């Protein structure tokens, strides 16, 4: 057999596989941070339902293993990757999910945070690389989400509040599974937007009392539960 023939065939194969991927067989998911329904901007001032005046410096969170939910609640079974959403990196605020089925998509399932298996598996790559600053040092495990900012209600150094929520082992396993069911109209041109409204978190937190959570434990578990309220699809 000629090497030339082989190479030609290989070239054909490569171009075919590249081409097939450009077909729109995936759902593009946008993640949009909001406060009370308006787009959230860093360093803008907001007022929570608890009457705390606050600004945000940092919002980073893992949305991992997203899966499509189809009609009759059948789940797409593929294991999808980890996404680190960072308010300062617009590119990180979207990801796509392969849609190989012709069935109607009725919802989206994902984890807020990182599962315990990944937390005990050593040094990881990509979104889970420890250079992303989402890995604890003195105690192993990922920080599922970081929300930092300032509020005059916080009697802390520079009025800072810091929520680093994580924990991979029971009874303080802080990852949360999230399923959002939506209707057809939510999907436009194979795109959908998940709104993450931080007002719904800060309506449940009194910043004068709770302003620094940096370790796994009961408090982190509580914040992780409340955090589920932030997610919705219009």
């Amino acid at each position, binding site marked *: 057999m000629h090497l030339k023939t082989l190479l030609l065939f290989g070239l054909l*194969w490569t171009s075919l596989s590249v081409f097939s991927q450009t077909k729109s067989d995936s759902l593009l998911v946008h993640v949009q941070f909001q406060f009370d329904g308006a787009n959230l901007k860093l360093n803008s001032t907001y007022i929570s339902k608890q009457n705390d005046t606050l600004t945000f410096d940092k919002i980073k969170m893992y949305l991992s293993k997203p899966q499509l939910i189809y009609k009759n609640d059948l789940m797409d079974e593929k294991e999808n990757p980890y996404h680190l959403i960072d308010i300062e990196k617009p590119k990180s605020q979207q990801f796509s999910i392969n849609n190989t089925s012709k069935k109607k998509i009725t919802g989206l399932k994902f984890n807020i945070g990182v599962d315990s298996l990944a937390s*005990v598996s050593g040094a990881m790559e990509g979104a889970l690389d420890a*250079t992303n600053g989402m890995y604890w040092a003195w105690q192993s495990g990922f920080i599922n989400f970081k929300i930092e900012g300032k509020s005059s209600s916080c009697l802390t150094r520079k009025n800072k509040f810091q929520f680093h929520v994580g924990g991979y082992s029971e009874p303080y396993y802080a990852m949360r599974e999230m399923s959002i069911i939506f209707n057809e109209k939510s999907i436009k041109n194979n795109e959908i937007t998940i709104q993450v409204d931080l007002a719904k978190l800060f309506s449940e937190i009194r910043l004068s009392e709770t302003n620094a959570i940096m370790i796994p434990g009961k408090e982190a578990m509580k914040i992780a539960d409340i955090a589920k309220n932030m997610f919705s699809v219009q």
Partner: protein
Amino acid sequence: MKKLLFILTLSLLVFGGFSFKQIYFTPLYFEIPKGFPKPVYDFKNNPLTEEGFQLGRNLFYDPILSRDNTISCASCHLQQTGFTHVDHDLSHGIEGRIGTRNSMTLMNLAWSKTFMWDGGVNHLDVQAIHPITSEVEMDETLENVVSKLQRSEKYQHLFQDAFGTKKITGQLTLKAISQFVVMLTTSNSKYDKVLRKEEQFTDMEQKGYAVFKRNCASCHQEPLFTNDGFENNGLSIDTTLNDVGRMRITQKETDRQKFKVPTLRNVQFTFPYMHDGRFETLNEVIKHYNSGIEKSATLSPKLQQPMLLSDDERTELLAFLKTLTDKEFLFNPRFSFPR
């Protein structure tokens, strides 16, 4: 025929890209000493190579890991003393900052399930993040370490050799450090040679071995001389540190003042002793277990009764402990500063 062509093409595509770059790795085999258990470390996830080991060794001895490029891993983990820091009870970081604990030894880490005095770290690969980022140690970020390494031509080459890429990541940096430290096996002490029938204990060492087996071996289990567990060994609490040990990690009252049971291999040279380095000499350590135990709710059940050794027995025990010294390990040029 079509199928064959397909497979050939596919394999050409998959392997073609690699073969052009001519990447060759030299596999390293991890030797399990006779009588040692199966290692905990999963080598499948981080296949050892000579190139990876040498990269890790370079990183271990390079102050580039610290914020002001002044201290390296080796600053607190010196080979000749079982890879720990002597002369200091509490270990030092950059700018003379002092931590709250005595640096641990680095030996036989392939058999360790948890790391640090409180076991807070669950995998060898993520261990190095702690000293790199700790304010009182290297006070650096892993992100910045990676960008410093990426700017270094030397490291671009070393990463290329070790992992086949010049694109340095946190994961590869950590895995390389693991490849070096996981190789630090010590198994050639006199004790080992006696077990292998290559040497013989003196009468005093033999008696000391018996004392050891009666009084110490339940926690300091042979052949690793640790059970990899956590115990409260009856030290009075140092009120300047108020270190609760394992409890900080598990948040369980039952873990108050429990610390990792350290290995006793090379113990002759790993002074000072205990998590806060409070004892300078092995004599003081033995005296503590003999009559200095402080009772508390979480005191190890194995230490409820004092040892009450005679002076002779104490001398014998000390003689045995010195047979755990492995000079071949402490002076192995493969583990020393890379030249």
